[in-house]
């Protein structure tokens, strides 16, 4: 069955549908990872987005229970060069196509994704639609008037909950995180109290937690006005650790500004240098907004830089006890590689544990 992609600039591409029926709008982004489609499509940080994978063969090892970031899909649409309903892996339970159908993701294969990437590389991320329906004028109009969603309060947890039973107690504000990150913290011996993004500063301060963690998430951090106010109230009162989206948020709260990257960092091969140790780590990334180096305020020290485009990949503010990184921690850290989460937990244990 046919599916059509229409871009903001009226480019039209047709391929074969292999997911849900219907029409979806979103921001077109691309990811360059060669494996891990299951983790990617279920990552809340892709909320509101239509994702093109640069690697061509999708669905090879099917979908299994264990690789889920957050159970259900968060992307709106999925574009790839080649999808094959045949899958093979002892853990697989269903195919990627079936999963998309169940999760209402419109998916299309048979697309020249490399040309799409080149377009985004040149013109920046753009609005797009995918439809399995007949094309009509209305669609072009809707796309023209489509406003990118930049604020996603709905992907945060609705209610506070607690994970793990560790010595260190950590308040964790969920802007749209995933299980891998929570599991990793729990695995490091941390009790994680997960709060909705609407949590008040007082509630955090009265929770008796050792430190605060600002999670990854989706959208434009500048649109998170209330959330920013909350963070501003917390700065200096509790040690703060922040990652990805959370890193940009806390930077904004400190008075720096963020800028949107031309085409975002989405993939698993982004080289980041730790300026203190001069070691380089290949990181997984998923963000479009980074802190503008020139606008960092007093006390903010850049700790990590992206080696490809020199964007800020992390900073710290020692007098306010803030540490933040823009990249995502690896799920499995090779021995001898820098493990940011582990060092943060050690930091909490050594300096702040009561």
């Amino acid at each position, binding site marked *: 069955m046919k599916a059509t992609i229409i871009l903001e600039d009226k480019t039209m591409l047709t391929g074969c549908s292999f997911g849900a029926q219907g029409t979806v709008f979103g921001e077109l982004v691309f990811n360059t990872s060669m494996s891990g489609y299951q983790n990617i499509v279920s990552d809340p940080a892709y909320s509101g987005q239509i994702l093109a994978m640069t690697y061509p063969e999708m669905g090879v*090892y099917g979908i299994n229970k264990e690789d889920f970031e957050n159970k259900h899909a968060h992307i709106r649409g999925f574009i790839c060069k080649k999808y094959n309903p045949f899958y093979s892996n*002892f853990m697989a339970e269903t195919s990627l196509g079936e999963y998309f159908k169940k999760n209402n993701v419109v998916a299309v294969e048979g697309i020249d994704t490399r040309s799409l990437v080149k377009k985004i590389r040149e013109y920046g991320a753009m609005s797009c639609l995918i439809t399995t329906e007949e094309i009509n004028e209305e669609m072009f109009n809707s796309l023209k008037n489509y406003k990118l969603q930049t604020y996603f309060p709905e992907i945060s947890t609705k209610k506070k909950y607690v994970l793990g039973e560790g010595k260190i107690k950590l308040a964790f504000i969920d802007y749209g995180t995933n299980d891998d990150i929570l599991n990793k913290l729990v695995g490091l011996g941390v009790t994680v109290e997960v709060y909705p993004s609407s949590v008040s500063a007082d509630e955090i301060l009265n929770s008796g937690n050792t430190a605060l963690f600002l999670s990854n998430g989706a959208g434009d951090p500048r649109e998170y006005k209330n959330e920013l106010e909350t963070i501003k109230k917390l700065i200096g009162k509790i040690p703060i650790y922040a990652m990805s989206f959370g890193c940009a948020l806390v930077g904004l709260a400190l008075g720096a500004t963020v800028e949107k990257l031309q085409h975002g960092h989405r993939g698993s091969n982004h080289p980041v240098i730790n300026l203190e140790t001069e070691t380089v*780590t290949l990181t997984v990334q998923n963000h479009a907004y980074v802190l503008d180096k020139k606008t960092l305020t007093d006390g903010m020290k850049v700790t990590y830089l992206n080696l490809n485009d020199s964007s800020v990949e992390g900073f710290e503010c020692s007098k306010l006890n803030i540490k933040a990184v823009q990249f995502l921690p690896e799920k*499995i850290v*090779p*021995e001898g590689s820098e493990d940011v989460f582990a060092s943060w937990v050690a930091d909490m244990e050594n300096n702040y544990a009561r």
Partner: protein
Amino acid sequence: MLDKDIKKVLVIGSGPIVIGQAAEFDYAGVQACRALKEEGVEVVLINSNPATIMTDETVADKVYIEPLTPEFVEKIIKIERPDGLIASLGGQTGLNLAVKLADSGVLEKYNVRVLGTDIQSIKLAEDRELFKNLMEEIGEPIPASDIVSDFEAAKEFADKIGFPIIIRPAYTLGGSGGGIAQNMEEYEEIVLQGLSQSPINQVLVEKSIAGYKELEYEVVRDSSDTCIIVCNMENIDPIGIHTGDSFVVAPIQTATNDDCAMLRASAIKIIRALKIEGGCNVQFALDTKSNKYYVIEVNPRVSRSSALASKATGYPIAKITTKIALGYKLHEMKNAVTGTTVASFEPTIDYVVVKIPKWPFDKFAKGDRILGTKMKATGEVMAIGRTFASAFKKAITSLENKRTGILHYKFEKLSDAELMKDLEIQDDMRIFRLSEAISRGFDISELNKITKIDPWFINEIKNITLVEKRLETEPMCPELYKDAKECGYLDSEIVACSGVKHSDLKKYKIEASFRLVDTCAGEFSSKTPYFYSTYGENCDLEDIQYEDILNKVEPKKKIMVLGSGPIRIGQGIEFDYCSVHASFAIQNQGYESIMVNSNPETLSTDFDVATRLYFEPMALENILNIIKRERPEGVMVQFGGQTAINLAQSLSDEGVKILGTSLDSIDVVEDRKLFSALLQELGIKQPMGLGVKNFNEAMKALDKLGFPVLIRPSYVIGGRGMQLCYTKEEAISYIEEAFKFSDGHPVLIDQYIEGLEAELDCVSDGVDVLIPGICEHIERAGVHSGDSMSVYPSQNIPKSLQNKMADCAKSIAKRLNIKGLMNIQFIIKNGVLYVIEVNPRASRTVPIMSKVTGINMVDLAVKTCLGHRLRDLGAPVGLYPKTNLVAVKMPIFSFQKLNRIDPALAPEMKSTGEVLGVDTCFSKALLKAFIAGGYKFGAPKQRVLISLSDHYKNPALPIIQDIYKAGYLVMATHGTHKFLEKNGVPSKMIEKFMMDKLQKRMKEGRLSFVLNTPKTGGDSQKSGFHIRTIAEMYSVPCFTSIDTMRAYLKALKTYEEKTILLPDTISNYRKRKFFGIF
């Protein structure tokens, strides 16, 4: 940062091409030399292989073409006093040499630092026991195993673990001497063989995990512990088949993200524990039913896999390894592909890469085709496609087999039951058997159970197979055509399957487009000139053209060079040497060079070598697609061996201009009748010959020609299926086979003139020729020129005959208006000169002749192809004067890797590589050639075994007398013994080859060598074959030509006279005093 104390570096090459160690180390070595020079470091290079590009004086500052032995390397170190050496770039040979030099204290004595990965790390990774201990220490799982030095210990392990067991000898390349044993009998045989082949008499016996997925990680680490995975790869064949013999895909397809992350973490942990600085390859086995994995092996060096990974991603591993050795960190270097990003990143690709090995079984019809832990492929092809299916199909096309499709490999005749049973056979045809089974509708899970190939791959092969089936059965329509093109089917195949006319396909308007290999999946704009084709997509080439217009770059004229495809016996690295030089020469002439090739091991497929590189099958359609986009002035076909020459006619038919020698002239030398007429016209003699179509004609021809004769099928490379027959019986026993080989074409019968064979290479502009020199073969005519030892300059040809040879070359070149290279082979008997072959193209000996004379033959050839006259170029013409440099070429064989192949020299080529001994006189050069060829001198003289066919008994007598005088005790077979007795040479008679006793003797090192001339037909053929094979297995020298034997005795004499052999650079040898007249 760059270590400024390093000013001079020794690079050790990998020696001759053998199975398991091919052109990938020339590619690595050249990258290393260039990287060193880029940093202002003086490069001293040693390699015994003259066909390599690394031994060019433009690549290294000092080039030593000398034997790769610790003694010679030490002498060179003493002369050159390098600050450091890099051990990890010269394959297993280079690595083993560096270890020996370190162990013997040479490196310390001369204060030579090992740059990059150090000796301790190499030992940790290479020594089975140390490695095993380290893995246990860091908690990485390895299969239950034991290191044994004798069979008793091995048996103990087997009793404990049970079969099947894998046996791997320590420190051997390509796993030679290893295997899988299913029972005690096989086990004993393989263990003993492995022990004898391991230089340290050690083998690893290991619980077999055959059937697991085999996955590889190419890791690079710098001294600050930054590690990157350049590429991961999955073997389509499961564990149990050597990775060099496996179909391989990059990146990994069927393992989950978590499994990949787990293995990535393990690979990085291992490379850190080993403290490797530079590139390294880690092989894993992954269970298909759990996340359980084992570490199989680590190669602490640049390898065949790293060459593949470099070509698959564009990431230059050897270059980066070299820079790391010089002190750089990964993040201090730029990514050479994008030019904007850094080298410390992990390449990500938006295509799929498939590698398929090229085996020599088409040549060795009787060889054992079963694949196991011992590598048998001589080369490989790689293909890039946007999908797995297209990459896979393109790779099959690249093999240059008669068939390029996936069906009809003669398995149609098998019954279902037979086919099902045969699917268990692990040989070179298994994928085609699999597709036959798929086309019959066999169930995927059933096929997976038998073949252990992952169901996903089987399903993909099914999709490709079904397209071929549909082409055969369904009417052509746009959808079917699109499916076929996207699957990688050629128009020629589509026409053949569907019966549709070629011209009718044009209406579907599906054109090939070209995409860029850029290491980053398009995320960053890149300027790499490296492309592959796909269908139904946009073209990245236009970006470059658009940018050129923007930047107002004046478009240059272009010339295309065709490479030579996969390395196979008869078409080796020498053609890569020629292609690469042609590309350089084209650029030097102000053109853009367009390179097309399908071989991932070679330098020609390095994107730095040409203006633009197309990694494509060497098939007409693929090349025409490129020509359509590039619009070159013309194509040069004379540098890419037979692969390129074979394409000339069809390219020309499509209106493509062939630069250089015209097609008509190529035709004249390839067509027997025209060729004979030409020689007659020019008054040049040739042996009489006849083409015959059936047995009766053959008998008549034999009566007319007399004996001996050479019988061969027409249209073959490297003398395939050629046989020398001394008697009618022998001829009759072979002729039927020749008809079978010939496939409908006539069989050729030629008079065999048992004279001195010689050859020359020349450059011609159609009027003048430049002949750098004449090579004389050591073995008499009848041995394939690629397999005979030869010497430059000729030692026994009178000046008058040399001039006559030069005149021949000149008159042929003039008559055929040869533009570029030409090779002529001669026989001289009783002062009469015969021409036996003319090749209007680059030959095997072009690199050697270029090096020994200092004449860049390919450069001149390109210029003459472009219309320049030699005289105008200031080049010398005529027979070039010799210096007192003498070079002896020795062929190198890979019989230890191939079972059931007769090691006897014959008209059919069998060698895989060659070494060159260079010195100032014949005797020294000869001894060097033998040493470089791996012959040991100075061992106590034991018994020798001699068995001669009747024809050679008389001519061999003085040689055997010499053997006896040299102090060897002669054992001889019945006939030979009687003959020796009659002639007064004492010998001990042995009964009909007492195989067991002989084998024991060889195993225990109590046999110095074997002299055995082969005989066609009969029992002695079989027993001779057996004895030669055993000798090969136990590395006992086995001479099958009395001429080689004589040369060996001469070398031995030189050795025993305590002649001091010194190394020198090739340019110094040339510079020494001239004689002769300009």
